[in-house]
């Protein structure tokens, strides 16, 4: 059996195409059924995320299967053929295995190293299993892919650095305060980015939120979504003293928080560490505050440059991950090749057994003259000789096939022992 994989991702196809396909395919379960019902397809898996649509299948005749799957995608998605040709990638066997491993390990993701994709692949696999669309090959392949993804995550730093502004803020806050449980965040100004960063912080344990805004109405909507409290600008100095993390994003032209306000707050908060993130342009917090003891000030450019640097690190880590994947692709391929000889070996054993049975039947009259013990001895002797003779060719065949090139040996075996199709009936 062969493995084929067809699909498109954020690199190969524009968003509109992927969108149309995802919508047309609808529920994963249905699509799996459709693919499974194609005549060439033995096992199938369908993966759709916001950045990719892929069909993975175990097939007997890869050439015609690829055509069928492509036709399926084109007709199913109601897409113009010309557009599609360039957008769909097709992989076969080793390439397909490699691609799947890369996808599961998040090397093929838009944000390399993002952790969601592994969960999405697992979900897709679960859907396939539920529709009974997987078999020996895909089961083994997917489990292998999950293992590879885990190995990549633990052995490389590919997902260890923050690559979003929100997550970077969380990492920094943790490195400053130790933990975020019970900390207070002050949001000054009602910007979208500030809200996003706050959401990340809340997810990591921050408990109370204060929102300060010139117009109290806008502040109220944000405060409600975080279960926080609203203060007017006039009580900002007090709020600064209360907060551990301050995020500013007002449209003000001057500094909203100056050195004096921070110095006063520090006195009141007995120098508890203060982390300030200034997302606003022009800036809201006097940059001179960065030099103060126990105060850590980052602006949007600082955070962005951290993100950029981390993305660079991920590229380096991706190389190491690539080596792990090559390793594992080789392992899997060895197993898959050895799979090719299994039917031949089964046939060989069956044939030998049927010969033995026939020969014993032929000797029936003579065998009957023996007593029970002797008869068993004769049978044992014959079976022993057969097993000894078969042992070396069978293990040798398995070994040879692990390194590829199974077809020739299998063909030779079938030819030599007369295991052609007429035998299999």
């Amino acid at each position, binding site marked *: 059996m062969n493995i084929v994989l067809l699909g498109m991702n954020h690199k190969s196809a524009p968003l509109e195409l992927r969108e149309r396909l995802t919508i047309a395919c609808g529920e994963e379960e249905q699509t799996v059924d459709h693919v499974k019902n194609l005549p060439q397809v033995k096992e199938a898996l369908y993966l759709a995320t916001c950045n990719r649509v892929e069909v993975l299948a175990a097939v007997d005749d890869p050439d015609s299967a690829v055509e069928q799957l492509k036709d399926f995608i084109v007709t199913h998605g109601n897409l113009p053929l010309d557009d599609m040709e360039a957008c769909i990638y097709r992989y076969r066997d080793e390439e397909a295995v490699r691609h799947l491993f890369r996808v599961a390990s998040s090397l093929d993701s838009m944000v390399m190293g993002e952790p969601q994709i592994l969960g999405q692949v697992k979900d897709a696999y679960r859907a396939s299993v539920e529709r009974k669309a997987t078999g020996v090959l895909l089961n083994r392949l997917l489990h292998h892919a999950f293992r590879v993804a885990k190995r990549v995550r633990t052995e490389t730093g590919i997902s260890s650095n923050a690559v979003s502004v929100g997550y970077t803020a969380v990492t920094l806050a943790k*490195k400053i305060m130790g933990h975020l449980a019970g900390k207070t965040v002050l949001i000054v100004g009602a910007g979208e980015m500030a809200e996003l960063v706050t959401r990340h912080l809340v997810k990591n344990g921050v408990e109370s939120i204060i929102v300060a805004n010139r117009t109290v109405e806008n502040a109220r909507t944000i405060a409600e979504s975080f279960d926080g409290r609203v203060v007017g600008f006039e009580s900002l100095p007090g709020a600064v003293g209360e907060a551990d993390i301050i995020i500013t994003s007002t449209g003000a032209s001057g500094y909203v928080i100056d050195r004096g306000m921070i110095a006063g707050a520090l006195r009141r908060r007995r*120098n508890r560490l203060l982390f300030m993130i200034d997302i606003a342009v022009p800036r809201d917090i006097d940059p001179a505050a960065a030099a103060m003891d126990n105060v850590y000030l980052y602006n949007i450019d600082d955070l962005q440059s951290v993100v950029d640097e981390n993305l660079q690190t991920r590229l380096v880590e991706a190389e190491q991950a690539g080596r792990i994947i090559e390793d594992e692709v080789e392992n899997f391929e060895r197993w898959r090749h050895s799979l090719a000889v299994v039917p031949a070996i089964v046939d060989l054993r069956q044939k030998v057994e049927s010969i033995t049975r026939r020969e014993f039947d032929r000797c029936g009259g003579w065998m009957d003259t023996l007593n029970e013990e002797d008869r068993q001895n004769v049978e044992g002797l014959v079976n022993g000789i057969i097993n000894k003779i078969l042992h070396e060719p069978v293990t040798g065949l398995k070994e040879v096939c692990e390194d590829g090139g199974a077809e020739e040996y299998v063909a030779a075996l079938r030819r030599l022992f007369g295991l052609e199709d007429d035998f299999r009936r």
Partner: protein
Amino acid sequence: MECCIFKTALVVYCISTAVFAVSMLAKRVALAKLAAAALGFAVLLHTVFILWHWAVSGISPVVNIYEALSFVAWAVSGSYLVFQAKTKTSVLGAFVSPPVLLLMIAASAGIAGPGEIDSSLETYWVTVHVIFTLTGTAFFALACCAALMYLVQDRLIRKRKVSDFIRLLPSLGDLDKINHVSVVWGFLLLTVGIVSGSFWARTAWGEHLLWDAKQVATLAAWVLCALLLHQRLAIGWKGKRAAYLSIGAFIILLFSFVGVNMFFPTVHRF
């Protein structure tokens, strides 16, 4: 046999330090955990050695400068392990293990069987004085390590370039807490050490305070430490200033511990 245990402990300390160094270079926390485990084993061996030594000598495990060095090394690594178990900051060990190793190497130069002891020193006051003062010093060493790490981490975060080291080093909050707790413990132990020493000085020489160089230096460190604790508790000093002050206190203590005997006449054998 005793010597053999000591040497084995020394080797394990050495391995632990090396693994810590590799963990910092490779920036892998898992290695630091391994190194911490090795350190634990070394401390165990070291404890056996000290107890054995105590049992053989009968009076005190610490009667000369080499034994004192070895004892401080033991106290530093032992108290570090307790902190590590509580705060899960195994990376701190990378800063603690090199000085411990140096102490052990220095100690190995002269550590031998039971040393001779003056009859005037054969009293429990001395044992108490020595053990408490040295353990106190060990805590200050730990506070100093945490303070140094604090300063490094503070600088890294202020540089606004997130390197792998930021990720590797503990958070500022944790480091400040470790520093504070070490200083409190060091202060308490040192106080007991100083008081017991002065009582014994009274019985031996008739005066609590002899204006001995070592006494003066240690008292200076004690006053500095008292000042630090006061500032922390009264006006909430934190972070860098506390770090600098605890480093200062440790340097004075260190001078008092190993430097005084080289430059000044003193009644202290070490």
